[in-house]
């Protein structure tokens, strides 16, 4: 029987190069990101879901009325990451935050950085910062920062 220290151990990586079909409505949401616009969908009740939702979870109706929201918004909740791990997109301390964008009634999950933990409050105003390369992805929004 081998000692524990003699056991072979090796790093592995399991990778799947998925392509995801985003569907007719969400495709418009992702395309708009490349134009530095964030879209929500408006329900017949007047409620605006952002990011865009294909169906209204309350009335169950199919949604198609796209409206622009943000780029500013309010932090509704956040979780501070003092020591980002290697798979995090931001290497400096940052927060995952639920952000209710201006004009929206729901919040979206994104990152807030370039601030100290003590600077963040529920209700703090933040605004979207855009990536240098726009690829029709949610990461086209690089992160949010506190409004000056």
């Amino acid at each position, binding site marked *: 029987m*081998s000692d524990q220290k003699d*056991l*072979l151990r090796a790093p*592995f990586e*399991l990778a799947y*190069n998925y*392509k995801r079909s985003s*569907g007719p409505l969400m495709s418009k949401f*992702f*395309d708009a990101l490349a134009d530095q616009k964030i879209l929500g969908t408006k329900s017949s009740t007047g409620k605006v879901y952002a990011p865009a939702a294909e169906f209204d979870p309350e009335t169950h109706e199919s949604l198609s009325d796209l409206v622009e929201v943000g780029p500013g918004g309010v932090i509704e909740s956040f979780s501070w990451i003092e020591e980002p791990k290697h798979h995090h997109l931001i290497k400096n301390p940052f927060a995952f935050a639920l952000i209710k964008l201006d004009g929206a009634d729901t919040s979206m999950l994104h990152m807030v950085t370039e601030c100290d933990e003590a600077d963040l409050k529920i209700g703090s105003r933040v605004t979207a910062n855009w990536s240098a390369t726009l690829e029709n992805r949610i990461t086209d929004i690089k992160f949010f920062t506190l409004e000056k």
Partner: protein
Amino acid sequence: MSEEEKKDYAESPINLEYHYTAGSATTRFLNQVKEGKIVGQSCPKCSAVYVPPRGSCPRCGVATNIEVPLTDKGCIESFTIVHIPIPGNPIVPPYVCAMIRLDGANISFLHLIQGIDVEEIRIGMRIQAVWKPKDEWTHSLENIKWFTPIDEPDVDVATLRFQES
């Protein structure tokens, strides 16, 4: 890519990074694979020979502590001709994945078959390992590039069934 396609699909890769710890049976097996040797383990109760060994006999529930050196010759127990390319796989279809039953072993393992027209592959066909150059050997069955047919009579399929002892 057309405008329509661009709208319909988003690249969405998923990566899982992890460490694999081999355990004592697999560590012993792979240490010998690194030296170009294939060593199975035998069950002290039913005598079944497992390669690659997992350290215990799933039928008897006992440790397989007897080491059994094996040859790199065997036969094809089962096979699949792969015609559909898998993204990122450097092997060009059509190619053959086969369950390899080494001589003296009671179970098989998956490897490639090369060096023959895929239409001629059959169960029971005699094959032998083609090894990479010795200086490329690592702790992996990839030290064997693939198996290739050898000029020996086919094995009777009935003998491939698990032998009760």
